[in-house]
């Protein structure tokens, strides 16, 4: 460094950004969450043009760019499209390692849903494996109304 900074230690300003958010789920996701919470049913929405069924449900089909029309019940069984087992306690994680994330395509759905896979040893999980939704004990109007997915017994 330059002479003008002789003897000066570079400082670090330890701080944070803490702006709490309240995200509106919107009508489509609200219906999905309420049905999950109150009826333990998993709903998807269907595109009137390409007939894809989306779960988690969408108001608009991203492929055809038209509004989805019909609600369809999907799952609670599905299959693992892909997954990972996280072994490092990454800062964003909400659970203790090992944590298994999977993309799960529910029966009757075209796309896949992100969720936890539990009640199985991580080494035994495989792509294509059949899993089923386990509902949370606590009533929650969110994606966490499903606690996790587990292998079909």
């Amino acid at each position, binding site marked *: 460094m330059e002479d003008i900074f002789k003897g000066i230690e570079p400082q670090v300003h330890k701080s*944070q950004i803490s702006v*709490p958010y309240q995200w509106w789920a919107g009508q489509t996701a609200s219906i999905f969450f309420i049905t999950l919470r109150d009826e333990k049913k998993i709903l998807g929405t269907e595109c009137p043009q390409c007939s894809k069924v989306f779960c988690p449900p969408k108001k608009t089909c991203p492929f055809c760019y038209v509004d989805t029309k019909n609600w369809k019940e999907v799952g609670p069984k599905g299959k693992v499209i892909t997954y990972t087992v996280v072994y490092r306690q990454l800062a964003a994680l909400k659970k203790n390692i090992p944590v298994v994330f999977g993309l799960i395509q529910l029966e009757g759905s075209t796309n896949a849903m992100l969720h936890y896979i539990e009640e199985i040893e991580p080494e035994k999980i495989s792509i294509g494996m059949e899993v089923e939704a386990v509902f949370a004990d606590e009533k929650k109007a*969110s994606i966490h109304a499903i606690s996790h997915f587990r292998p079909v017994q």
Partner: protein
Amino acid sequence: MENIEYIIIESGKAVQPFNYSVGMYGSKFFNELKNNRRFLGVRCPKCNKVYVPPRRVCGDCFVEMKEFVEVGPKGTIGTFTILRFAFIDPETGTQKPIPYGYGFIQLDGADTLFQHYIDVHDESKVKIGARVEPVFSDEKKGTIKDILYFRVID
């Protein structure tokens, strides 16, 4: 679906920690503030403007600055306001105490303005052009908080 319950997803505190580099110019400023309770600016070799806070580049001339000069500690209120509405302080995630005086102070010898709190317990004295001086904290941390606020000199 007329009377649907609209769901809100809450983030909770949503804390994102950062270790912001102060930079060598800022570090030198805070070092001086901490040890000697003196303010430093930096002078542009081209336009001679003295900048506070000190930084590497004169935006006007696009040249690197290296000459530190002492400024302040007294100064003049360049402009100010008094904040009276409630908002969330993003550094804490909680409501900031209000009201408070918010001032841009032209430290003696500087060409730019330095932001800090202004003591507003007597609002009638707080005017553009009023002379002010810093009130330092007892604790010397070498941060912007070493200055508690500026107060109007009677």
